[in-house]
């Protein structure tokens, strides 16, 4: 942690309500435009949320919701030509305007990322140990020390026999072990925030449960903040302290994971929740929403969800609903939210 102190040192704290955990990252009015064949497409539109230290914040959304783009903007890996507005405050410094050189120093050290497909994210021609230790080596750590640190890291994430396995290549690892190696790679820079994009989607259920337990343990032991991006509400229910539900590039609902998933206030969140089939009880196939998730390129007027919403009225077709508080810690962008 000390190696990166020059970029992660907290700025003078701003006054904030004492009951809320201090936000590590504050995303304010973030909008992202990507170039498209018919002009720029606003893939993320006026998104605001916070990620607090020691908490897991879940970004929920389907395809085209902008959840992955939001995470990509935070880590600073947006495609060339992306136009970003708004602010992303990291210890008081704005990631949007930060010099690329500083961002690079922050990447992996202050903020690290775990990708969905470890097979694609790991280099097949380099040993696992070399990849886990890359950031340490680049930081100038002596080779011997790197080796020991890597072995400790692999041990911490549950790779068996790390003394031998750090010298193996990704193809010698199973899918679950590869994802553990990815987690070790993320941990190597002692980040304060880990972004995890669908970290268990490519894994089998039995492996998924173990990776989720690992992520929870890391959050608790290291007081690390995590931004978990997923379409899987079951994963969110098990890991996320707070959730942010996105649709067509906008936020529909924010609140504690338990409350949002138990009693959704936004009709879209409700539809998502009822469409998750249960394993421990028999459920009927949910009444499906009509149509497909709205594409940001053809975002419907007013509330982007209105063409699929059973409660939609005239107002929903014309006015964009603003985020408003419906209960303590619960915000919803809907003209007619469920009563809380």
């Amino acid at each position: 942690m000390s190696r990166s102190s020059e970029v992660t040192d907290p700025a003078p704290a701003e006054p904030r309500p004492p009951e809320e955990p201090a936000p590590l990252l504050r995303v304010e009015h973030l909008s992202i435009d990507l170039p498209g064949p018919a002009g720029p497409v606003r893939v993320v539109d006026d998104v605001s949320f916070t990620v607090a230290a020691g908490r897991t914040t879940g970004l929920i959304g389907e395809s085209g919701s902008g959840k992955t783009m939001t995470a990509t903007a935070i880590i600073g890996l947006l495609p060339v030509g992306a136009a970003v507005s708004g602010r992303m405050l990291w210890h008081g410094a704005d990631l949007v305007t930060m010099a690329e050189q500083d961002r690079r120093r922050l990447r992996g050290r202050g903020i690290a990322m775990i990708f969905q497909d470890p097979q694609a994210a790991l280099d097949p021609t380099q040993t696992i140990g070399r990849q886990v230790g890359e950031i340490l080596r680049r930081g100038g750590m002596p080779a011997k020390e790197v080796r020991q640190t890597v072995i400790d890291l692999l041990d911490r994430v549950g790779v068996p026999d790390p003394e031998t396995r750090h010298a193996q290549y990704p193809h010698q690892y199973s899918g679950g072990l590869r994802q553990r190696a990815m987690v070790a790679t993320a941990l190597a820079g002692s980040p304060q925030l880990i972004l995890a994009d669908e970290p268990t989607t490519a894994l089998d259920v039995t492996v998924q449960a173990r990776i989720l337990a690992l992520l929870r343990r890391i959050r608790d032991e290291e007081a690390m903040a995590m931004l978990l991006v997923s379409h899987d509400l079951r994963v969110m229910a098990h890991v996320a302290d707070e959730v942010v539900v996105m649709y067509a590039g906008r936020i529909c609902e924010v609140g504690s994971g338990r409350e949002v998933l138990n009693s959704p206030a936004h009709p879209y969140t409700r539809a998502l929740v009822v469409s998750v089939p249960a394993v421990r009880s028999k459920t009927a196939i949910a009444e499906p929403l009509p149509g497909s998730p709205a594409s940001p390129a053809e975002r419907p007027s007013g509330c982007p969800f209105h063409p699929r919403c059973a409660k939609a009225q005239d107002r929903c077709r014309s006015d964009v609903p603003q985020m408003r508080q419906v209960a303590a810690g619960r915000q919803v962008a809907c003209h007619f939210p469920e009563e809380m």
Partner: protein
Amino acid sequence: MSASALIEVSDLVVSFHTRRERRRGTQPNAVDGVSFALRPDETLAIVGESGSGKTTVARCVVGLQAHQEGAVLFDGASVGPVAKRPPATRRAIQMVFQDPAASLNPRMTVRSIIAETWRTHPSAAPDGRSWDAAIDELLADVGLDAGVATRRATALSGGQCQRVSIARALALRPRLLVCDEAVSALDVSVQSQILRLLAGLRAARGLAILFITHDLGVVRQIADRVAVMHQGRLVETATADDLFERPDHPYTRKLLDAALDLEGA
């Protein structure tokens, strides 16, 4: 059971190793002695983790994969790889793949994708009326409007592509639909549309469905019976109610325990 079975798979063995490796017996078989039967109006789900052999079994049933030992019986007659099957058998068993975009030719319109099946199987082609009208009707059956017929797969959403895949399969009036992870790649809010569609088609047309998936929640919603595969073998086959309420095999219990639910998190 076997007398009324539409498909009967017995002692199926598939290995992806060379003959010499197989003789040495050191390499595990991808499918290792799998037997099950499927009734004409039944939905059987095969569940298991990656590498369990569930997709290989499905491919053997469709004929996309040759097996080394055992037999696949369709209507009591042994069937091999698809190229060696009589046309009527080929027509009767159709498959819906996981990735809806990848399983449709991006250069063909939806209309020509469906018409192609009739050129391959003239016996299934609509007689006495125009193909276009028959295609519109098929599209309506899977919940698509006729306007989709002139579009290409690249212009369709994932859910629409999967509906086209199902329409293409239905065009040949199959008796068995093999769905390999057919809803796994779809958005949650679209999954239930396709599951409803499959359940409705099954009831309306008396289709048998072999449903390959890793999603136990979906299985509980649509399957009559469930077969659990682990390392190439069937470890348990039971009615869906029995399997979820009273799992017998330790591996089945492990799978059920690991599955996440929204409730009780």
